[in-house]
Structures are given as C-alpha cells and as structure tokens.
C-alpha cells in the first residue's frame, strides 16, 4: 500500500470536516475502552500478566534469528513450506507463484495487515486471481473500491449504517436494507459461496509458535476458520517478529489480546493450525505455506525502537488515543493508525515520509498504560522526534525558531529582558480580560482555544522580589 502519511495534516483536516466520519467516531468512542476496563478485572493480576507477556515477546526478539530458524524447522517438519519476503513486492510474487502452482482462480482472505502493507489484492487481480476479503469490515471496504481500513480490528469504525446499506444494495443488486442483522446475513450468504468455491485461503497470523511450528489465528466471525478449513491451499502471511516460544506462552498472550482489543475474555474462535491435512481427514488444506516478512522489521531489531516489535496488534492504543478518537484511522495515511501506527509508519516507510506522525499524539501516555505488552509508545514517539531533528527533517522555520530560542535562552540577561517584554506585551494584548482570543504569530494555536494571559510580571521578577 502506498503511504499517504506525508499528507497527514490535510488528511486529518478532511477527517475533521467530514460529518459522517465525525458522527461514527463519536458513536464508537469509549465502547472498546469501557469493555476493556471491565474485562481486565477478570484477571487476578493483570499487571503481572502484562509483564509476563512483555518477557515472552522480548525473549524471542533478543534471539530473533535463532527463533526464526527454530520455527522454520518445526513448521517444515510438519509439511509446511516456509518462504521469506523482504518487502511487499516479494509477498505478492510469492502468493501469485503459489496460486499459479496450484491452479488457483479465487482466494478468500481472512484479515492480514501484511497483505495491506503489500497491496496484495491489486497484485492478485492483476495476475487474474480474484481476491475476496471475508472479514465483514474488510469486505465492506473491498466492495467500496478497495478503501483502506481505519482501524486494525474494526476496519469500518468510521462508516455509518447508511453508507453500508447503500453499498450492499449497489453491489449485491438487492433491495436496500438498514437492519444490521439482515445486512450481516446478506454478507454471510454472498461470502459462503466464495468460501466454498475458492481454491486458496490467505490469512495473517496472530502468533507463530516455535515449539510446534503452528500459526495461531484469532477471529470472532469464524472467517479465519473458513479460509483455513475449506480451500485446498492455505497461505499464512506474517511479520518475522510474530514468533512466540510455546503453547503456554500463547495461553498467556490470549488472556491479554482479546481483552485489550475488544474487551472480550476470549475471542469466539482461536485456531492453532499445524501442517497439512492427513490423507484420511475429510477437511483441511493439502498445502500450507508460511510467508515470513521483513518489510522494515529487521532494521528495528537491536535499535532503540526494538520495544515496538513486541506489538501484538490489539488496537488498545488507538482506542484510547484522543487524537485517533477524533480523526479516525485513515488520516494516518498507511496501514497502521493511532500511536502504534505513528511509530511503525516512520520506521517501516521512512522517517522523511511520515514527518507529522511522531507529532500526532499528545504524549498523554494513555496508550502506554493500556498496552498489553508494555510498549513505551510516548517515549518512542519522542525518540522519533529527536531523530527528525538530528536528521534536519523539520521545516526551516521550526529549525530557525529553535536556534533563535537556544541562542536567547543561553544568555540570561537577554532572556530576562525578552521575557519581561513578552509578559508586558501579552498583558497589554489581553486588555484586562485574562486571556487572548487570537495570537498574530500563532493563529493555529488560538483557533480552538484562548491563550491565557500572563499576570504582569515574570517568574524571575517575582522571585527576585521575594528574595529581598
């Protein structure tokens, strides 16, 4: 997927001006937050569980090369084929090759964010293979001319019922309906046909289990089970960082993932899939492929951003982010929105291509507090900001302003004089009203709020008076 993250400000402004999106975001706001708050109370020691999860993820990342070799060994021993992809283009090449090898005309897809990174649907279509998204939300986006998702687990959170009703009537040539169960039933019937006729299932992978060579898939709809039970070929596309050691580790992480994501104690379906079907088994794929993807991840290993590789893609950080809650996910411009996206997009697509994202947060640390694997997201955003400055990526006027500031601030006499002047000037500007409605030099800042007026003297003046 081509990143539009460099246009974050424009995208965010458009999102703020979009009444349907604003209404949908207001409706969704707080739902996941409240459900999570209730669900985590079922765990006796939630903090200890978070700490255990952090250790599990760190253990693998600190020896990632060896764990990947281990996973490759165990998966291959069970009859799977392990392929490696450096980038999105190579993911597409692998999937198209596998499809051609097995005479695939249609591929049903369970959610895979990696396939979004790769723009896989376009590549499959170009190769004459029909991709069908089967997660209800992803399906809605696909039939709306491949619209990008706005949330990693609730991809159409920005869409209204009316929009979905119009889309279904147009695409399925059925009478328009606004009953949500009826719309869901309609999608079920359309997609069931695709499940039964597709030769290939494509899924992401929530976790890869090194002990057994398995992939763990977590869904509520059951589409993850469908695409891995009915077609004769199953292709798993996951990032290289998704390995965990044991089934016990899966049990620990599963206490956190659904609770953090949707506020459920467990998702309706969790499948642990290993190898291919036995000759005497009536269902299951005959061929299983894993595509292990780098696409920027290897460079993060051993770096000051390594903590980010622990991410288990629950979406709690965005659900709790005041910026995300207001602008939705598409404004972030690439696959991953919210705080985790504001860290991942610059790391995976280049700091210079996502110049505003490290600033698209208030550093309030709600994201850091709720993260089930304790990723210090505000700290990582701050480090990215530092990198931008080091690499001279900030705009010239910002750099100039900070240099001026530094020059003044390192001269106490001049600083005191400047502060006295500014305080007097702002007091005069406030004209006794206590606040300033519009600042000439910072019109953006006062667009949404008033600037509080200083009360006459500077701190240094007051301090000097007190001391006497």
């Amino acid at each position: 997927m081509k990143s539009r993250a460099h246009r974050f400000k424009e995208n965010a402004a458009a999102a703020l001006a979009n009444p349907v999106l604003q209404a949908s975001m207001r409706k969704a706001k707080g739902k996941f937050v409240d459900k999570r708050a209730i669900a985590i109370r079922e765990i006796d020691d939630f903090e200890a569980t978070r700490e255990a999860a952090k250790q599990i993820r760190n253990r693998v990342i600190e020896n990632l090369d060896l764990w990947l070799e281990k996973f490759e060994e165990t998966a291959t021993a069970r009859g799977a084929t392990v392929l490696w992809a450096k980038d999105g283009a190579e993911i597409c090449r692998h999937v198209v090759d596998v499809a051609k090898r097995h005479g695939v005309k249609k591929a049903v897809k369970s959610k895979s964010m990696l396939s979004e990174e790769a723009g896989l649907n376009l590549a499959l279509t170009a190769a004459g293979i029909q991709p069908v998204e089967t997660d209800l939300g992803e399906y809605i986006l696909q039939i709306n001319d491949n619209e990008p998702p706005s949330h990693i687990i609730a991809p159409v959170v920005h869409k209204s019922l009316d929009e979905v009703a119009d889309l279904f009537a147009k695409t399925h040539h059925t009478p328009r309906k606004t009953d949500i169960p009826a719309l869901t039933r309609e999608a079920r019937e359309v997609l069931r046909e695709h499940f039964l006729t597709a030769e290939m299932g494509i899924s992401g992978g929530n976790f890869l289990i090194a002990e057994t060579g398995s992939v763990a898939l977590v869904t509520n709809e059951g589409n993850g089970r469908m695409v891995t039970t009915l077609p004769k070929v199953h292709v798993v596309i996951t990032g290289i960082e998704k390995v965990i050691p044991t089934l016990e580790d899966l049990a620990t992480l599963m206490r956190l993932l659904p609770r953090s994501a949707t506020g459920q104690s467990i998702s309706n379906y969790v499948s642990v899939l290993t190898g291919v079907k036995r000759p005497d088994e009536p269902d299951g794929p005959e061929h299983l492929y894993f595509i292990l993807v780098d696409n920027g991840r290897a460079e993060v290993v051993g770096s000051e951003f390594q903590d980010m590789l622990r991410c288990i893609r629950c979406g709690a950080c965005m659900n709790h982010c005041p910026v995300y809650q207001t602008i939705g996910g598409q404004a972030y411009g690439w696959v991953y929105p919210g705080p985790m996206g504001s860290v991942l997009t610059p790391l995976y697509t280049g700091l210079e291509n996502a110049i505003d994202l490290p600033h698209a947060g208030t550093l309030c640390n709600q994201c850091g507090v709720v993260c089930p694997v304790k990723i210090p997201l505000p700290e990582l955003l701050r480090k990215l900001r530092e990198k931008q400055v080091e690499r001279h990526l900030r705009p010239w006027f910002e750099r100039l302003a900070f240099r001026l500031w530094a020059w003044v601030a390192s001269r106490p006499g001049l600083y005191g004089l400047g502060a006295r002047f500014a305080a007097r000037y702002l007091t005069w500007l406030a004209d006794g009203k206590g606040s300033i409605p519009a600042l000439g030099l910072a019109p953006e800042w006062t667009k949404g709020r008033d600037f509080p007026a200083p009360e006459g003297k500077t701190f240094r003046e007051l301090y000097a008076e007190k001391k006497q």
Partner: protein
Amino acid sequence: MTSRDDILGRVRARLNRNPENAAAGRAAIEATLAMRAQGPCPAIDSQKSALAGRQQAGTPPLLERLVEKSLAYSSTVDRVGTYAEAPAAVARYLAGLNLPLQAVIWPALARLDWAAAGLTVDTRGAEDHDLVGISGCFCAIAETGTLMLVSGPDTPASVSLLPETHIALVPASRIVAGMEEGFALARAELGQLPRAVNFISGPSRTGDIEQTIVLGAHGPYRVHLILLVQE
C-alpha cells in the same frame, strides 16, 4: 543471495551474532522449550484439572464456571447423565427450535443410538446444506467457557463450522481449568498437535457495522452444549 539469507543475515548483524553467542542462544531456546513456563493463571474456584484427578468427574467449580461463561458467550447449556442419554437431549433441543431431526455428526459419535431418538444422522465432514452439526470435544475450558476441538479423521473440523446450529457433547471429566491444561492434555494424549486445534466460545459474531453485535457472521448462529455429568 536468497531473501532468507538476506533477512536472517541482517537480523544477525543487528544482534551482533557470533559463534559463541549463537551456541548460548540455541541452548537458551532449548531450555525455554523444555521448561514451558506458565504465565500467571487466574484462580478459578477450583484448579482441579482433568489431569490432576480424572475420577473426580465434573468437579462442581469447574463445571459451574464452564456453564456460567458459556452462557455469557451466548451458548445454551443442557445437562444429562451419560453419552447414552445424549441423542434424546439433542432431539429435544431440535424439536424445541422447530428444526428438522437431522444432523451431520462426527464419525467418533457414530456408536450412539441416534435412530432410537428419532434422529437421522450423516457420519462425515459437513457440507454447505447441513443445518445441524453434532460434535464431541477434546476438552472444555472452564476459565472462558470454551470448547477445545481437535481435527482428525473421526473429528472433522467442518462439523462445528458450516452448519447454522452446532451441538457439542461435553463429558464432565474433560472440563479443565485453562488453555494451559488443555494443551497439557493434548501433549499427553496425542503427542504432537493435530492439524487444527479449534477453541470455540459461543456462536460466530461480528460487531463491524456500528459496533452492533450480530450472531452468526460466518459460522454457527447457535452453539448448544450438552454436559454429560456422569462421563
């Protein structure tokens, strides 16, 4: 250079891999895999698992917790004594919903006398037209109200997936505390994991349209547990 070597090469470089720390790393991996350390497990009124005491069939705390969580997950629950009583319980449930007394069943359940309860059953994997699927379970997990099913020639995965109604027979002796105990049981009884281990908690659902929960997204609309308290 292959992509594999390229990717692994860059990861190794970033981790300052050398022969000594590689050997130490491999030893650490084998130790982790051998230890299978458990994370913190929430207390369930009783931690007596099927492994700890199989003869204590249906230890009440685990069974009650399973029932409570299953209901919370929109499943329905019935209780009978033994496998022999299950076909009649199935017939009652289907009649109550005005569903035809017809089902696809796991080959593993073929030994039960379904005909005596008035049921017509097909013993195979499920097909699209099947309305009712009847399975057993490998075990059930009290902590979250979850069925653990493993695939195999006698236990096809499609039976719990394609039909609109899924009925599962759950022997009380197979109710364990958490996922950890389920995996331990699988290792002890099956050796290696079968192709598909499916954890099922209630009917399929979606909340994608305006966060409104709808049951029966792709899988069953209804999940009905028949607890066999004397099994």
